[in-house]
């Protein structure tokens, strides 16, 4: 038996980025399963005793990181440049995220500069058309440099 194409999976992911573009974090979370895993690989804070990573649930860690970005970059926007998907609900999206800094972001103080950063997101959308996994890859060194911060940490 041939698997039916999961056309909705790519549509769900497009809706996710539409919501991100309008800063509707609640809608972003609503598109995710309650237990959806979120991993932002560039997010890594080294403390003396432990390393804090951007790894948790979409409705906790994800929501905090998305809201923080929007607060620090009030004109934050995104442009989806490519989406590929398979028949099992897997979707990969290449997205350019950009914005102008108005408030401190993480350890980067605001100098009013703008950034543009290519991202690669990998999603899984379940049978109920809910996102149950998000992984995000991007280069924080480039973002920090564009914002005028040249310290690695």
């Amino acid at each position: 038996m041939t698997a039916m194409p999961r056309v909705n999976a790519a549509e769900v992911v497009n809706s996710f980025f539409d919501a991100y573009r309008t800063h509707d974090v609640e809608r972003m979370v609503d598109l995710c399963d309650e237990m959806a895993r979120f991993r932002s690989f560039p997010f890594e804070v080294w403390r003396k005793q432990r390393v804090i990573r951007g790894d948790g649930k979409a409705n906790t860690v994800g929501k905090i990181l998305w809201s923080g970005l929007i607060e620090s970059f009030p004109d934050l926007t995104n442009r989806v440049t490519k989406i590929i998907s398979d028949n099992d609900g897997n979707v990969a999206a290449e997205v350019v995220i950009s914005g102008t800094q108005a408030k401190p972001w993480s350890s980067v103080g605001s100098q009013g500069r703008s950034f543009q950063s290519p991202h690669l997101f990998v999603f899984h959308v379940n049978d109920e058309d809910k996102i149950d996994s998000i992984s995000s890859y991007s280069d924080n060194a480039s973002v920090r440099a564009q914002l005028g911060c040249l310290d690695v940490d």
Partner: protein
Amino acid sequence: MSKRAQFASLAHVTAALPDEHQDVQALALELCERLSARDFEGANALILAEAAVDFGPAGICGSFSEEGAKFFRDLIAAFPDLRLTVHSVVADSETAVIEMTVKGTQGADFLGIHNQGKHIDVDQAWVVTASHGRITGIRAYWCQTQLYRRLGVKRLDQISITG
């Protein structure tokens, strides 16, 4: 848990791949295997000379013959125990997106970073395109800050000064 194809080992990959995707998936996975085997010539053979490569975090962008080949050669030379561990693949008929961890111990200068014998483990995703049995494009995503942190670089404008 994601139903995305998970690969603890690549030994059974060919059998696990849908036929219509086998070309680009198989090529992308073979590229990772050859790099892990430090087989530059083998990796080189999979990629068109004019393939578009974009290793953005390293500031490398252009054709494979002019930019990508040197990057792979330098990577293999700098990390004698280089290992690319593939975690998942998402693919359609033309493109494969591979999530992986690149690990290794620095044994020579790399991208201007002095060798201190430090270990890296950097999660990455590569977007690989292929046509007619050869790789036509590679676009890689990783966080260069993570690489710098692991190799002891403190400032983005002083890559060669490590601590």
